[in-house]
């Protein structure tokens, strides 16, 4: 038996190590550094119904142990994704989870139905949490709207559905509970924390998008806290994401209640990290005397 295989309701993954949306391009860019087949899965950059040009540069700025970004969902739209990237992604011998974002429920529904036409996708991740997109409904901050999106995507396709939630709310637990109630197979916790960088001498914001999302090691304690809070309160598999950069970080999320994790910003500064973590995770499970990773999931005692 594969001691690292994990099940998140209808979604099965060969191991818990995924790479996060927007931090792995369309995978092909990382082929020099990563053996894709060893990953638990790949989540390509968010797809929107129509092309989006994205925000003007500068789009990222490093902060203390973190990264602020205002990429603005720069992508060529769903049809170009299908034409240019889908075949390639589906050929990589790992689970491909398409991440989608729309401006209204109908957008999400139509994208889900269109992607449902292709065999081989493992799941859909709904980006209802991107702080960089203006003009859209803020699904991620309102439990009712979050439930509506999740429910309509479930109805529109047969794929497992993951809701990716924003931490920029008073209670992520409330949103996660609504997503679970509406039939989400899992929740990804969390997207970036809204932040800002200022060049005071020029009296200007540094990012072209003015506000940005903070990621990287700086946010790990915050993300970990949210994973733990949701694990305590809601009965739904959790995919932990935020600042994970080494195997100890992975284990912290797993014992706090995450069934799987996503590696984000760390891919930028350690291109081979996702492969490395899969190997190390296998060793840790053995070292801990476990026959299966699930024995460690949520094992935190308070």
């Amino acid at each position, binding site marked *: 038996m594969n001691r690292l295989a994990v099940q998140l309701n209808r979604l099965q993954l060969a191991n818990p190590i995924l790479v996060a949306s927007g931090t792995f*391009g369309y995978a092909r*860019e990382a082929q020099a550094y990563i053996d894709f087949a060893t990953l638990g899965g790949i989540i390509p950059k968010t797809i929107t119904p129509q092309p989006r040009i994205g925000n003007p540069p500068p789009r990222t700025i490093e902060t203390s142990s973190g990264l602020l970004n205002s990429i603005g969902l720069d992508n060529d739209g769903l049809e170009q994704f299908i034409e240019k990237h889908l075949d390639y992604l589906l050929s990589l011998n790992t689970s491909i989870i398409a991440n989608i974002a729309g401006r209204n429920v109908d957008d999400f529904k139509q994208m889900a139905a269109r992607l449902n036409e292709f065999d081989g996708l493992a799941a859909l991740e709904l980006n209802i949490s991107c702080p960089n997109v203006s003009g859209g409904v803020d699904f991620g901050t309102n439990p009712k709207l979050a439930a509506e999106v999740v429910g309509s995507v479930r109805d529109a396709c047969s794929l497992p559905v993951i809701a990716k939630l924003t931490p920029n709310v008073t209670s992520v637990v409330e949103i996660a509970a609504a997503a679970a109630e509406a039939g989400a197979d899992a929740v990804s916790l969390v997207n970036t924390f809204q932040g800002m960088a200022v060049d005071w001498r020029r009296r200007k914001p540094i990012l072209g998008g003015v506000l940005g999302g903070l990621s990287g090691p700086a946010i790990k304690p915050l993300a970990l806290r949210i994973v733990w809070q949701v694990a305590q309160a809601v009965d739904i598999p959790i995919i932990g994401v935020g600042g994970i950069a080494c195997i100890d970080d992975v284990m912290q999320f797993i014992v706090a209640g995450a069934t799987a994790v996503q590696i984000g910003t760390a891919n930028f500064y350690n291109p081979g990290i996702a492969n490395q973590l899969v190997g190390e995770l296998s060793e840790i499970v053995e070292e801990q005397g476990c026959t299966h990773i699930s024995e460690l999931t949520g094992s935190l005692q308070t």
Partner: protein
Amino acid sequence: MGEPVCSPTLPGAVASAVQHQAHVVAQTQMARDTYCLRLHCPPIAEQIHPGQFFMVRLPGTDNPLLGRPFALYDVYEEDGQKAGIDFGYVTVGKLTSAMAEWKPGQAVELWGPLGNGFPLPDVEHLALVAGGIGQTPFLAVAREALGQKQYGNPPRQLPKPAKQLTMCYGARSAEYLAGLDDFQMDGLDLKISTDDGSQGHHGFVTELLAESLESNSAPEAVYCCGPEPMMKAAQQLCAEKRVPCWLSLETPMACGFGICFSCVTRVKLDESGDNWDYRRTCVEGPVFPADQLLL
């Protein structure tokens, strides 16, 4: 919006790039605030060619967090084998200030080679235009163009060495001029300018380019690297004279290999430039034909 941003063919994506734990072999000062680091890293040295870059990161810390891009200055050899790379840098911020303190043996994390690099020159007269630290890619370009050295694996084959090679190099003042000894080579006509007139022509480096473009033996191609205003001026001069020009951009980068979409520049989708799209300079550049860019 036209052409897709993320076309499957990325001219600057290097399938054979590697992530490598390197170490510092030597560090020398090149000019004021300007240093040259020599890193031992055979797997990158063997394949890198002029105009390509690599990411440098200090391992074991989260601050600075990200790697930083640097261009190849030259490849050095040991026992006739390509053993490592030299690169020049100016201290401007977090990592470069730390780098100035690095001693031989210092561990360094690298990934590369990255980017498309300069095309192999196939002209009789090539001009190189450098502003400030933008000179660093041009030592290897010059050595390759003059047929003195080969780069890449398999080695890039120059159709024929350039008969004439002009380099216009501008800096703020004489104390910032770096690597002048390295650029003393047969066949290279080095023209200097400084903003304060402390050495060479008193004025902009693009004035030296303009002079060269006006001369009887004008260059048939121009390679340019430096601050944006200078590149813009070079772009315009070359467009007026209809001389093909390539610009190497120094857009800030977070990953260097195409996964973050932070390093974008505006690329024209038609001649007028009314239609344009953001493109990633790390995997579609950093070297672009000047007439494709909206700077």
